[in-house]
């Protein structure tokens, strides 16, 4: 996957070991780091409030020193793992390598195999920072858990044995600051269609026992512009599970309705045994409730005479950039101007993403830049000016830029020391309403 590999100003994603947060997001799972002493701090300092059950300072680590770099640290790792069982009460252990372990070439699979042979729920995954970023590494972590843990329970959970069950792969835990809320909303909506849903991460998941049922699912749902795709590809081969792919985040009325109909059609096609009429009724009820709010809102949007933002710049991953652009234009009237996908989108997906965005409007083109060097992206925004009030939706890095330009600012991406998110969601009908509240709360807050 060819992607940009030059310098980056203002990091907005992490390296391979950053995907340890995907482990932290599984209830009662623990990442065990075979890495330098600083990797854990770097990751927790980036995501903030990301400790979960046993992440952050709780995660065991071999803390490589100079001697370990020369002689390897396999014995040290064995001791740390073995003592982790004495100290911490966890359901799943995922051993992850940092650059040190990776370059030195320690055979962690063999060490982990010793514990697997004792029946421990333990998994090894190669995550040295130079290998890839956390968007990609997330898939490797999930695949490793399926390959080394879930697969052990296939006899009790035969492939595609539950027609109604689906696995959804969507928000990346912690990299998407709204991941908890988003997964909860996906689950609620899909259950509304009559499906049973494995979200796998966060409080709405059933932890490792839910992971064990992954093979049972009839099909998978991928909501992502590109990341996570290797997981559903793998599951297709492994368990013969087909998947339906929604390329950007369904935010607000139009896209959520489209998303639900896409899943519904797919479910019917794959004989999920759900009642189509009931599902349609559920969707209609949600749509009606949504538009009741938009109806109330319209007067304010059209008549507020003291100035509201009329255009936006977005700095986020490609899924958010496209999802928010569509939403803003059609459901608030704010026009997306230059927008930036900062997730180092692999080249082979860029064309589809551009097409997806182009479908937003047949009247206007929204300029999308694939630019992981966010400092460069910011400089572009500095050099442009548009008439009217602007708003920047981005990470904490962009707050300074917004004040330089006299724009409003809403934090929607990591890293962000300027916003506290717990269980808020931006996807779905309710997510769209919440995004409207947040944008106009910011706008109105400027008055009086």
């Amino acid at each position, binding site marked *: 996957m060819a992607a940009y590999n030059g310098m980056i100003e203002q990091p907005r994603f992490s390296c391979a070991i950053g995907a340890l947060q995907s482990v932290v997001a599984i209830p009662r799972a623990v990442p065990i780091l075979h890495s330098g*002493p600083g990797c854990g701090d770097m990751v927790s*300092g980036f995501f903030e409030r990301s400790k979960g059950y046993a992440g952050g*300072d709780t995660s065991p*680590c071999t803390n490589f020193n100079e001697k370990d*770099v020369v002689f390897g640290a396999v014995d040290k790792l064995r001791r740390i793992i073995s003592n982790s069982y004495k100290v911490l009460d966890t359901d799943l252990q995922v051993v992850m390598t940092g650059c040190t372990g990776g370059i030195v070439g320690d055979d962690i699979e063999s060490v982990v195999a010793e514990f697997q042979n004792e029946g421990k729920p333990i998994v090894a995954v190669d995550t040295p920072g130079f290998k890839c970023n956390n968007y990609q590494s997330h898939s490797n972590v999930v695949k490793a858990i399926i390959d080394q843990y879930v697969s052990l329970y296939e006899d009790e959970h035969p492939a595609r044995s539950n027609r109604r069950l689906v696995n959804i792969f969507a928000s990346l835990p912690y990299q998407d600051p709204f991941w908890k809320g988003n997964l909860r909303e996906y689950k609620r909506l899909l259950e509304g269609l009559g499906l049973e849903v494995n979200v796998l991460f966060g409080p709405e998941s059933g932890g490792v026992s839910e992971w064990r049922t992954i093979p049972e699912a009839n099909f998978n749902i991928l909501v992502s512009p590109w990341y996570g795709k290797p997981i559903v590809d793998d599951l297709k081969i492994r368990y013969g599970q087909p998947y339906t792919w929604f390329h950007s985040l369904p935010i607000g009325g139009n896209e959520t309705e489209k998303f639900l109909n896409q899943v519904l059609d797919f479910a019917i096609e794959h004989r999920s045994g759900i009642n189509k009429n009931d599902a349609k009724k559920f969707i209609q009820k949600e749509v009606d409730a949504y538009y009741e709010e938009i109806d109330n809102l319209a007067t304010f949007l059209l008549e507020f005479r003291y100035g509201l933002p009329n255009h936006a710049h977005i700095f986020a991953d490609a899924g958010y950039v496209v999802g928010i652009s569509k939403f803003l234009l059609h459901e608030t009237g704010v026009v997306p101007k230059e927008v930036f996908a900062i997730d180092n989108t692999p080249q082979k997906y860029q064309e589809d993403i551009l097409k997806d965005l182009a479908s937003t409007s047949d009247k206007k083109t929204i300029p999308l830049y694939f630019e992981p060097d966010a400092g460069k992206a910011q400089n572009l925004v500095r050099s442009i000016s548009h008439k009217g009030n602007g708003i920047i939706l981005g990470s904490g890095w962009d707050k300074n830029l917004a004040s330089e330009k006299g724009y409003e600012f809403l934090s929607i991406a990591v890293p962000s020391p300027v916003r506290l998110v717990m269980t808020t969601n931006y996807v779905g009908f309710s997510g769209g309403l919440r995004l409207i509240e947040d944008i106009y709360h910011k706008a109105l807050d400027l008055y009086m």
Partner: protein
Amino acid sequence: MTKINLDLPAVEIREVRINSISGYDGNAKDLVEKSHCEGRLKDRERSFMQCAGCSISKAACMTILIQDAAVIEHGPIGCSTCLQEFNFTYMVNADLRNVSDPKQRKIYSTNLQEKDTVYGGNAKLEKTIREVYEREKPNAIFVLSTCASAIVGDDIESACDQAEAEFGIPVVAITCEGFRSKIWTTGFDAGYHGIARKLIEKTDKKSDFINVINFWGSDRFSEWFKPFGYRPNYITPYSTVNTLRHSGEAVATVQACSTLGSYLGAALEQEYGVPEVPTAPPYGIAQTDRWFRALGKILHQEDVAEKIIEEKKKEYLPQIEELREKLRGKTAYVTGGAAHGHALLSVLGELGIRAKGASIFHHDPVYDIGDENNDQLRQRVEDFGDVPHYRVCSKQEFELVNALGKLHPDVLLARHGGMTLWGAKYGIPSLLIGDEHYGMGYEGIVDYGNRILDVIENDEFVKNLQKHAVNPYTKWWLTQDSDYFMKATEKEKGQ
């Protein structure tokens, strides 16, 4: 004689330079005695460890916060991700240092990939330095090494020298890869080593300022130095490349935290003739008096120092006495870095709060300047007595959770993020004060005392949290000795 050698490109690590350790379990008095008795202080290893933290973010904070500098992390992108916190810090605290128009911090990663670890990353580094220079025109560029670039063997020093010659600004290589030292304060030393080598200029000129080596705390020193006719030159956060360049003109250097500024203070004295005030920072009355007297002596204004002390006593002693009365019988536990943790123990001592124990991240038996009078823990023990259950914990959370759970103090004082959580989970009122100057001097004792009273009084939140606290630690572990995994290692090695 210090072991500072600015001719070397890389700083010598703390374990080697000043015999710092990261594992100990005993009491403060014993640790102090062992520290000053050649060969008696032994580091203890653990057979279980959690993420300990590394040098790079420490080197980063001493360079990123220089107003007009840019910082390049030479490694995979992950090694620069937490540095965004310093952008926040910089913007938020700018007011405290009268920086009216704080500029977004300039933080870059060379974003090393797998193939760079095979073929080397120097070409990429050279290109990055050029792009950063052209994009920002900073007055200095710092390049931080990482585990990956160090193992691969990239010659960062050469790339920097070459760029420095071409662009005519200091381009400084900082050797701070994580595996190099288990004492992450080595990262501060690494940053200062680069600054002392490449930025500070030799001079015979003396100016009207005193160097204050600190973090980003509030400005207490302007007021304190004024009667002596001097002003503070804060280094390095909020300094400029130019003010750093001239820091050799200072008449003296003081420390806000001896472990932080150990290396730079000694380098300024040894290489640039700026004397370091030969006593620990001013925490607790006795040490505050010593500090003002030592400062007065260096400035040849002993009378001014005596006058300040007299005035401070008059103003603050009654308030301190009142606080002691209110805090009578209270107990506390301290966790934080050396030497700020020692400083907090002194403040507690002054307030009459009994320290039940402490988990301090590492221990420096002696600072680079080589003067035992700078040992803040020794001063604490001499002024207020021993601290039992004193541990050097390498930020190992499992040990803190174990030790704290057994001692149940009335209040937990913490100095680093993440640690107060465990106080709260046990229902112990917990306080973290980020401003390192907060507890300094007479006024600091009063301020801290009031905050402690406040936090003990308002314990409803922690009491509620305690009821619902999730604890991933096993019952077995919570009933073992805190140094169980140190003992296990020693047993294995037959020590």
